[in-house]
């Protein structure tokens, strides 16, 4: 459908920024609310395009990452429950449609991030047993994974960075 959602959001944001806000005194509450709206519009302008594919890719890569990491921890007794849980996640985190809605992708992503949280906690709680060298290697892999995710979502956040939230 033309224009695209991104184009419409960008058009609304441009109108607010160049034609509406300049007509208001900067110190007014109305202007403040519009600035908040503008920051979110600039964020949404990127998010509407990026979010779905990003979540789809993230979810797929996290599932592989979990499998590889927990395979490398198969000698660690405390990691065994997480291996079982991963199997449950794999069987239950499936999509109802071939082209899943963003809400469904986000729901799966939230479950995967909660699982990643628990992996992080398990690593730290077993730091002594793992030994410092192995712990740092595993922690490094987790952080690389997290940083990569943050870099990928950066355009959605950077788009709003030049705009005040108030």
């Amino acid at each position, binding site marked *: 459908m033309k224009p695209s959602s991104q184009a419409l959001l960008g058009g609304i944001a441009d109108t607010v920024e160049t034609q509406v806000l300049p007509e208001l*005194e900067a*110190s*007014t*509450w*109305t202007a*403040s*609310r519009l600035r*908040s*709206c503008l*920051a*979110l519009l600039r*964020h949404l302008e990127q998010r509407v395009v990026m979010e779905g594919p990003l979540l789809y890719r993230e979810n797929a890569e996290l599932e592989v990452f979990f499998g590889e990491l927990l395979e490398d921890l198969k000698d660690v007794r405390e990691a065994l429950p997480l291996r079982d849980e991963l199997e449950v996640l794999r069987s239950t985190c499936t999509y109802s449609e071939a082209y899943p809605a963003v809400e469904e992708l986000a729901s799966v992503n*939230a479950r995967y*991030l*909660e699982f*990643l*949280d628990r992996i*992080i*906690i398990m690593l*730290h709680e077993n730091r002594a047993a793992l030994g410092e060298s192995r712990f740092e290697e595993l*922690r*490094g892999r*987790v*952080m690389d994974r*997290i*940083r990569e995710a*943050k870099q990928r*979502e*950066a355009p*959605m*956040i950077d788009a*709003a*960075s030049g705009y005040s*939230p*108030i």
Partner: protein
Amino acid sequence: MADIERSEAALTAESVADYFSARLGSSVTVRNLRQTFPGLSRETYLVDAEVAGESRGFVLRVDPPSGGGTPTSLRHEWEVYRRLWTSPIPVAEPLWFAEGVDFAEGRAHMVRDLVAGGTTLPGLTAATAEGARLRRVAVRNHVEMLAEVHRLDWAAYGFDEFIPVPASPDDALRLEFDIWKDLWLAGRTEPHPVITEALYWLEENMPTDTPFISLVKGNNGIGEEIWRDGRIVAMSDWELASLGDGVLDLAFSQGTLALDDFGAAIRYYGECVGHEVSPRRLAWAMFWIMFKALVCLNTLFLRNYIAGADSRIASAAFGVISVRQYERQLAMSIGKDLEAALHDLAAQTTRSTYASIGATS
């Protein structure tokens, strides 16, 4: 100019006049009621009134309908004011606190006297010699005030009656860490693995060289305190007050201490309190304040917005955008030496506030 008078319709000049008249036992006329900007954590109204024919100014501070943007209650802030009023720390005279009464929809509120002045200084940011002089004076005065707060005998004024006290100076940051970690875990809107990892990083790098336990103001600086003739005449907005390490205030000046040479400001603070601030302790505090801001923005602003309790679009903007910005900064820093991490972050901004501190990189 009517638009700047108020943002929400809950309070009117008439309702304030009626309430104040009943409370003060005198006829009160409200000539002007203006909500200060931005007032995200709490609503603050400047009340220009006549009480029995005499001009008088008040400050009315009210919890927003969502309950507020900090984890502490307005009563907590009232108790801080009540004790500070009897201390050498300049604050506006606290007059009364109430909640659950037939005013402001029963929301908690406190009233204090209006101190003449403003929350900023005219000409402060001017690129002139006078502007530079004003910034130097303002920064030194702010440091002196923070040092006074941190050297206050808080026990003598009863702050330990309602604020948790660290077991020792060495434990000051540990208590702070435990309290705010619990707030995060209880209130986060979704999993944030980067924050989970960041908390481990902060915990394993936690300084234990706090020289003494201080009353800590929390958010401070330009935009918070009341200034007049280049000096602070009243310290204001104590919603995040705690007992702990004063270094947290140095990290929470919201850019004030960086208006002039940040390193010089920190060294001057060390002279004022009689203890140097180690670069490592300061670096930890800077990252810690990022985490605290993130806790407030996510567990309060964004959570309340999602739940429909807070309809302000700014809450969504802060909760969605600012939280992710802090997360990325932490993600890029975790695992590094604290001071090096802060230098790296500072190098990414056009105005580094940390350039004159600590180790070179």
